[in-house]
């Protein structure tokens, strides 16, 4: 039975851990629905093509002309140009200087891509939004002032809103950043070309189609832009997690098969030790099928009890491992974490029954005369 317990614990706890990892990554990865991210292509290519297809930018930025091409190609889906840099900041008199990312967005686009947990969106060039981690780490509130640049030479901005936590995002990662108006960004850093374009795919539209449309439009001659479909990327990540979980669970399954072999041996020993008893039972009128059932019940009990103990232990093991590795146990108490426990327990019972079949058959088909003579 110990083998079954260990096998169930191995399968179920690996499944729980894998599921918890997937859920944890899901929570961390924020896609804001379906997004397609367009970035300047950084490698290869030849020549400076003009017209028709994409216009290659040599400065690894997306030009305004390219943005308009993208915007036309993806309509009616919304294309949002994003400017990005990082700079030194100071958060008040006497505070330390920090370096943080700065995103520049058109005020009309901010509400389409970011949600606030405090304050309001700013349309003024003197206002900015801050990420939730930025606000927590530096004790920044709505109304706080941030000086940008060495000695604040690039100006001071007033915090008008705090952005909701977004985790790791494919489009823009604002948790530790500030978001300013595109106009302020242009004027301050003397830049008008964009770092990325985020295309918000409308509901019901296939993001893969949008990706293909952009690539066809922009990369006709040379590869000018790289296009990433966040939905497909997420699917690839989850598929990888799934494969890893399956692999480690399969290793647990091997231990279960070993347990099954041990149950087979135990059952065969049990039959051998009880040959005389089987002979007596057959002689006084016990049917073969009743002998078979008796031994199958024994195998079933071994499997059921072992699986129940294994299931309980696997939940405890899953709890401990989740707490240690993920610093949270909230993913343990969801239905998707119960599935590997149920699967492990069922597999344990099936293995027990499967490995009990031959010994039970052997017991049922013993010659009663030989069995009665057995010492």
């Amino acid at each position, binding site marked *: 039975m110990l083998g079954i317990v260990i096998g169930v614990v191995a399968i179920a706890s690996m499944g729980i851990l894998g599921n918890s990892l997937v859920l944890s990554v899901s929570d961390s990865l924020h896609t804001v629905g379906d997004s397609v991210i367009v970035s300047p292509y950084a490698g290869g290519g030849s020549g400076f093509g003009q017209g028709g297809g994409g216009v290659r930018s040599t400065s690894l930025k997306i030009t305004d002309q390219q943005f308009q091409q993208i915007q036309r190609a993806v309509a009616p889906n919304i294309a949002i140009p994003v400017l990005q840099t990082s700079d030194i900041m100071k958060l008040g008199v006497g505070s330390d200087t920090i370096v943080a990312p700065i995103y520049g967005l058109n005020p009309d686009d901010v509400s389409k891509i970011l949600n606030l947990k405090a304050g309001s969106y700013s349309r003024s060039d003197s206002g900015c939004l801050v990420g939730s981690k930025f606000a927590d780490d530096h004790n920044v509130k709505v109304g706080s002032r941030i000086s940008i640049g060495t000695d604040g030479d690039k100006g001071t901005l007033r915090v008008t809103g705090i952005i909701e936590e977004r985790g790791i995002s494919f489009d823009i990662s604002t948790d530790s950043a500030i978001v300013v108006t595109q106009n302020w960004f242009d004027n301050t850093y003397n830049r008008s070309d964009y770092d990325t374009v985020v295309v918000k795919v409308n509901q019901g539209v296939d993001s893969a189609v949008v990706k293909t449309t952009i690539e066809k439009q922009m990369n006709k001659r040379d590869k000018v832009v790289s296009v990433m479909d966040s939905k497909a990327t997420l699917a690839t990540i989850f598929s990888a997690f799934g494969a890893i979980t399956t692999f480690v669970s399969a290793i647990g399954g091997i231990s279960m098969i070993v347990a099954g072999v041990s149950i087979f041996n135990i059952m065969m020993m049990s039959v051998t030790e009880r040959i005389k008893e089987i002979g*007596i039972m057959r*002689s006084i*009128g016990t049917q073969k099928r*009743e002998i078979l059932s008796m031994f199958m019940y024994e195998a079933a009990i071994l499997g059921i009890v072992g699986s129940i103990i294994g299931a309980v232990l696997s939940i405890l093991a899953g709890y401990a491992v989740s707490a240690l590795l993920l610093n949270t146990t909230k993913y343990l108490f969801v239905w998707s974490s119960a599935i590997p426990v149920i699967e492990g327990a069922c597999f344990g019972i099936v293995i027990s029954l499967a490995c009990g079949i031959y010994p039970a058959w052997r017991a049922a088909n013993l010659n009663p005369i030989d069995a009665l003579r057995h010492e």
Partner: protein
Amino acid sequence: MDDQPVMEFRNVVKVYPLPSGDVTALDGVSFRVARGEFISIMGPSGSGKSTLLNLMGCLDTPTSGDIFISGTRTGDMSDIELTNLRRDRIGFIFQYFNLFPLLNIIENVTFPMMLKSQKEVDPEKGREVLRSVQLEDNLFTHTPTEVSGGQQQRVSIARALINNPDILLCDEPTGNLDSKTGDGIMELMTDLNRKGTTIIMVTHDSHIAEYSRRTIRIADGRIVT
């Protein structure tokens, strides 16, 4: 006694095929056992007594010939039917008692009843039968290892009687008991026979055979008397 024999062998042959050559254990055995008889079967070692007992108990099938139990021909029966026949019509009493060590005495005795009814049985019937074989009430909840050999054999007899069989088949019933205890068992069996139970007993002990009313002697697979 009614006319139909409770057991009949007609020209029964049993051959065991062995790699070294076939062995004929029984060679054309014919006899009848009337209802209510008490018969002992005697013969030297290797005469075919055990083979005869196994065939009488439907634990084995003849190579040729017919066996009838209460008028039913056993030759065409399936294993399930033969098992049911053993359960309902034949009671076995073994030399070494062959009780289940993990069951108590009541459970041992009522085991065949449970096989027949396929559900929990009323232990009262078991107690009645145990009292009829003169076993004390205070022993009913003991396990077989907690009682004497003679008491175990009484339990074995009770188990054999529980389903009101047509025949009691006994294989050296006193072989594992001292003479005084053995006589006690034989007196019990004589009493059962007097009440109408048909008993067929295999023994090599002529003193024990004297308790029976007829002796069948077998040698080299054939009945000699």
